[in-house]
């Protein structure tokens, strides 16, 4: 059944286990299993040892944390989702464009945009706060008729007036540019949102393909080990037949038991889905009236269910097997529900 000698297998196991322990020692989660040149047995061993490191804490009693912790975790996640979704800089642009005072523009926008927006508003007859200085038209509104102002205005050189007009025009131009830029940024935002949605959809599809591939690989590994068991010389078979009169199921099963050794594998074909709230449980019969659970049988996509184990649950000799319908979610120590399949003989196959 094994392809390596015992020594080779032992040294490979030690190499893989030592590498994983080294990663743990560094306080980090073990990295990817060895994929050196497609060395499949090392990959499988590394994956098994990784999962072993993941089941060790199951030996501890569960310890529910305080109820407040759940709220804190979900609140922390919600806060992060809010920051990502709102994009505060983008959300502020429309308000800024409307001439909100005193708000500094975001990075990348011309600093004069806010001023220009106010000036543009002034040009439309709105705000006057940023008027740069008295010009020909604004002069009258700023109290040109007061006796103190009149002598100064008449003395302002033409060059200053021209400079003021040029500056005003430049600021108006900047305001127009800012409006154009905002429009372009909005269009860019929409494009980014569309691309992000496409990327997320593509990632979801790629993930689904990855999960499907992973499932296929797992099935391949399962089939390989099951084939190895059922073709082992000396393997014994315990046929599982429908129980009840009339029979409670149309399913049929075979339980393979390696001999010597105690590795087992059961496959049940044409097993209907269990009723709501119930599960199929495999039992090994030890002696006259003692049963030990072997696990829950779950029909797959092809209405077949299978389970396997490295060894029988107890050292006692198995005298038979059964499948019963039990209530889901309950811990049971012996069969309680109706028997669906049973087997009471062991036949040597090879």
């Amino acid at each position, binding site marked *: 059944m094994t392809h390596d000698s015992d020594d080779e297998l032992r040294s490979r196991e030690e190499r893989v286990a030592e590498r994983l322990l080294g990663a743990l020692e560094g306080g980090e989660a*073990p990295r990817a299993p060895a994929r050196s040149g497609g060395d499949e047995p090392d990959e499988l061993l590394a994956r098994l040892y*990784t999962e072993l490191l993941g089941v060790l*804490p199951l030996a501890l009693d569960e310890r529910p944390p305080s109820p407040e912790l759940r709220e804190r*975790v979900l609140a922390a996640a919600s806060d992060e989702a809010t920051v990502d979704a709102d994009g505060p800089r983008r959300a502020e642009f429309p308000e800024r464009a409307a001439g909100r005072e005193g708000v500094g523009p975001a990075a990348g926008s011309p600093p004069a945009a806010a001023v220009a927006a106010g000036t543009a508003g002034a040009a439309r007859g709105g705000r006057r706060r940023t008027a740069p200085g008295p010009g020909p038209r604004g002069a009258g509104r700023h109290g040109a008729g007061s006796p103190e102002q009149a002598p100064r205005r008449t003395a302002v050189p033409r060059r200053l007036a021209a400079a003021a007009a040029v500056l005003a025009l430049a600021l108006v131009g900047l305001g127009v540019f800012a409006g154009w830029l905002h429009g372009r940024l909005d269009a860019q935002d929409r494009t980014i949102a569309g691309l992000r949605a496409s990327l997320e959809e593509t990632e979801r599809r790629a993930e689904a393909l990855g999960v499907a591939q992973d499932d296929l690989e797992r099935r391949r590994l399962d089939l390989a080990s099951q084939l190895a068991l059922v073709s082992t010389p000396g393997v014994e078979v315990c046929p599982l037949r429908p129980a009840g009169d009339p029979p409670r199921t149309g399913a049929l099963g075979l339980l393979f038991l390696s001999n010597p050794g105690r590795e087992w594998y059961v496959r049940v074909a044409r097993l209907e889905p269990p009723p709501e709230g119930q599960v199929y449980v495999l039992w090994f019969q030890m002696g006259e009236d003692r049963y030990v659970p072997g696990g*829950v049988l779950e029909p797959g996509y092809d209405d077949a269910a299978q389970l*396997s184990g490295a060894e029988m649950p107890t050292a006692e000799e198995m005298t038979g097997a059964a499948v019963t319908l039990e209530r889901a979610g309950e811990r049971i120590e012996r069969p309680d529900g109706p028997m669906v399949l049973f087997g009471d003989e062991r036949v040597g196959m090879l």
Partner: protein
Amino acid sequence: MPSETQLPPRAREQELLRRVAGGDAEALGELYDRFAGTLNALATRILGDPADAEEVLQEVFVHAWRRADGYDPTRSSVSTWLILVTRSRAIDRLRSRRVVERTAGEARHEVDRHESPAGARRVQEGERRRRVREEMSRLPAEQRRVLELAYYGGFTQTEIAQEVGIPLGTVKTRTLLAMRKLRQALRGELRDLL
């Protein structure tokens, strides 16, 4: 709930994590409900302080929220990923606190309890826990000790050798023997996680 019964547990957990990666907070809550008890037990076991353990737990689930898209199903199951992240964070905190002696003392106390887990939701999960406890208790005491010092105590093998007073080579041998025995004894349970 039809989706719960149709998907095997492992596929269900991967589906949850995929939804978390997509920003589904409800899926994060479900992931929390499924694993918080085990992860908290692990963190408490390592740190010896429930408050510290809960801080680590919060870090772990925030990490899961942020980095669910980095989970690789070819490397480990979802449960193992979360457990190893929890262990890593707890060990980091432990080392920074340097309360080695207190943790070693608690290690010897915790391992001997064999109570039924409260709140086991399925026959399969309860059976797996029972099997792991059973096989851990079957390990020779000296092998179990070095494994637990490495796993829960965050000790390096050199530190274990000093702590226990045995050669470094003996520590390595005992640890590897323990892991090989467990890997063989729990082969069925581990294959369910592949």
